[in-house]
């Protein structure tokens, strides 16, 4: 009996603490050493890990205990450090900044320096110069791939309320190469094609019209107005303000200017609407809000409008021509995604 109890104690995994306590009480001095060693899990056979216990219930229990102890130790350490910091007062060393992937981002040599003349000239004379010199106003045509399903149709409608002066047209199986000359003749400056797969929008082709660059994005995480919590009323016809965050590299600049050229130049501040394109880790998050200033320092925002994320797949120099067009940037997964800290936008 003693032998059996000893082996059980040695296994170390007890489902009920009472059982163990009883055993400890019952067992005599000979086995008290073993019982002690059972209680001090950490000291017990070296190189023993919780995963070696075959019984799932016991293993789970031991793992939970391990985690609790770890958490306890961490809290104690934190308290100790806080006490030390308070004790030192002014002499305390500055707080350490935790490492994040954005902090550790590999410096991209194509990051645009604001005073760079060559880049300024390049941007001043590129395809968007007519928009930025206020010579043309944006006019957007939104369409989808052939035979769109309900979700994509609703997404297109909501997108057209977010972008002023936009029109949604049904695709009717037309080839994009034929659509583009017609759009140009009717004075459109942008063509957006939302691609659909299995009843869900998953791609976007954004083509600047006279002869401008074409960007192909992967669309994910689309949330329509119905699915948004605490949303405001539908957006009005006022032109929104545009916020472009974190487009630092040369490629990022081109894409940022493309997004900026979608919206009219002068935002109507009466409408208090703002469209945000936030770039983080090569993903572009689109949000549409309405803001109100409660006082000078506090703002309240309400999310309206659709919400989606984009990831750039390729940027092509002319209008949409997947076969014979020249690509300015192509996302090559095996070459570009090899490092977790390298981003291109």
């Amino acid at each position, binding site marked *: 009996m003693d032998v059996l109890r000893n082996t059980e104690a040695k296994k170390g995994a007890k489902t009920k603490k009472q059982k163990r306590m009883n055993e400890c009480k019952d067992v005599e001095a000979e086995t008290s050493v073993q019982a002690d060693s059972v209680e001090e899990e950490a000291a017990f056979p070296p190189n023993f890990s919780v995963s070696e216990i075959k019984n799932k219930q016991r293993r789970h229990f031991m793992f939970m205990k391990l985690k609790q102890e770890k958490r306890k130790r961490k809290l104690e350490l934190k308290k100790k450090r806080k006490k030390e910091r308070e004790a030192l007062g002014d002499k305390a060393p500055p707080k350490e900044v935790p490492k994040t992937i954005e902090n550790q981002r590999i410096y991209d*040599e*194509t990051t645009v320096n604001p005073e*760079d003349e*060559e*880049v300024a*000239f*390049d941007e001043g*004379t590129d395809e968007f110069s007519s928009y930025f010199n206020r010579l043309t106003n944006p006019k957007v045509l939104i369409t989808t791939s052939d035979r769109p399903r309900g979700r994509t149709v609703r997404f297109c409608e909501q997108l057209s309320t977010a972008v002023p002066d936009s029109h949604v047209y049904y695709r009717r199986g037309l080839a994009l190469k034929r659509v583009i000359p017609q759009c140009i003749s009717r004075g459109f400056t942008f063509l957006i094609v939302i691609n659909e797969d299995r009843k869900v929008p998953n791609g976007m082709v954004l083509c600047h019209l006279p002869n401008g660059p074409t960007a192909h994005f992967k669309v994910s995480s689309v949330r329509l107005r119905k699915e948004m919590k605490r949303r405001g009323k539908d957006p009005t016809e006022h032109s929104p303000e545009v916020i472009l965050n974190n487009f630092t590299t*040369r490629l990022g600049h081109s894409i940022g200017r493309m997004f900026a050229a979608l919206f009219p130049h002068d935002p109507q501040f009466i409408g208090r609407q703002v469209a945000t394109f936030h770039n983080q880790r090569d993903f572009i998050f689109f949000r549409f809000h309405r803001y109100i200033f409660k006082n000078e320092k506090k703002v309240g925002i309400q999310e309206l409008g659709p919400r989606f994320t984009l990831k750039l797949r390729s940027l092509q*120099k002319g209008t949409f021509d997947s*076969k*014979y*067009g*020249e*690509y*300015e*940037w*192509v996302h*090559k997964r095996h*070459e*570009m995604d090899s490092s977790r800290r390298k981003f291109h936008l």
Partner: protein
Amino acid sequence: MASKSQSCSIWVGSETGILKGVSLSKQQAFNFCEMSCLSRDQEVCVLEWGDPLESEVLVGCANGTVKAFSTEKGIFTESKECGDATQGKFTGLAMMDGSLVTCAESGILKVWKEGCTDTIEINVGNGVCRMRQNPSRRSQVATGGKENPLKVERSISPVSNMVKNDWLDLRVPVWVRDIGFIPDSDKIVTCTGYHQMRVYDPSSPQRRPVLEAEFGEYPLTALSLPASQGTVVVGNTHGQLAVLDLRKGLVRGCLKGLAGGVRGLQCHPTLPLVASCGLDRFLRVHSLEDRSLLHKVYLKSRLNCVLLSSRNLELSGADLSGEVEEVKQEGEEDGETDEVWDAMETVTDKTNKRATEKAAEENAVKGPKKRRKVAKK
């Protein structure tokens, strides 16, 4: 300025009209532009050496002017109006016996003689994409383009047409994007917009290409022949660079790194190096032996054409007749460049070497084991 231009071994032309010189020994890039006024119609379309000594670079611009840039002085020395923007951009420049040959997109091939205002004009058909001069036979020039089959002009006057024949009785569309002359033979290599690479032999009675090979699914935009015979390097609009074999037409390997379409490609005349530039605003130098990236330079505008100097060739065979100081300097430069290349560590290089070494070791270890197993059986 002069010292900067003298140290540059690679010249690149950009879309903003700036001529850029890259010095690998100093690891720097310099902009050479005429004045601070730049304009898009000065976009550099073609770059070519003005003379065999490589002291002058001819720059062909989109508005029809050809400028000469002296590498020794570091300034633009002359500028000539060789046509206007209506004729299209320049597709080729060549120096032939002291006269300048220019070809524009509309197909007008002109020969401008020094001093003379007369020009000989030939029309080679519309939609020309490229004109190139045979480096071994300077009087030969080849042109080709979209729906414009490859034509070779010898000594300007007689013209020989080489129309590609279709052997399926179906008309195959023609779109010659770039041309290369194979040295020591009559053959010409072309790459097309329909992702094909063809080798023609004008001396054979057939008009068909001798060899035809396909690569990728995107139009091939640039082509270059390396110093070692039997291969050709091509680049396409997707940024894929490949080394193709000229005997069988198979792909020997790909050069990685480019993210945008390749606009300019040139192999070094003697060393196994290839320089490529493209729409992603980078100049890259790859080594052809192990296909690794040696240098990568960010040049802020989209790049149109690249020109390599055969400088190291001169250094290796230094003339004793030259001044002692110059030889010493060149020797130092050569040493520097060698050191630069030896010291050049790209992470890819090291991992490749380690991977290959490890693979070699593993193979060596596995080999005897496998043999033992077989023997036992």
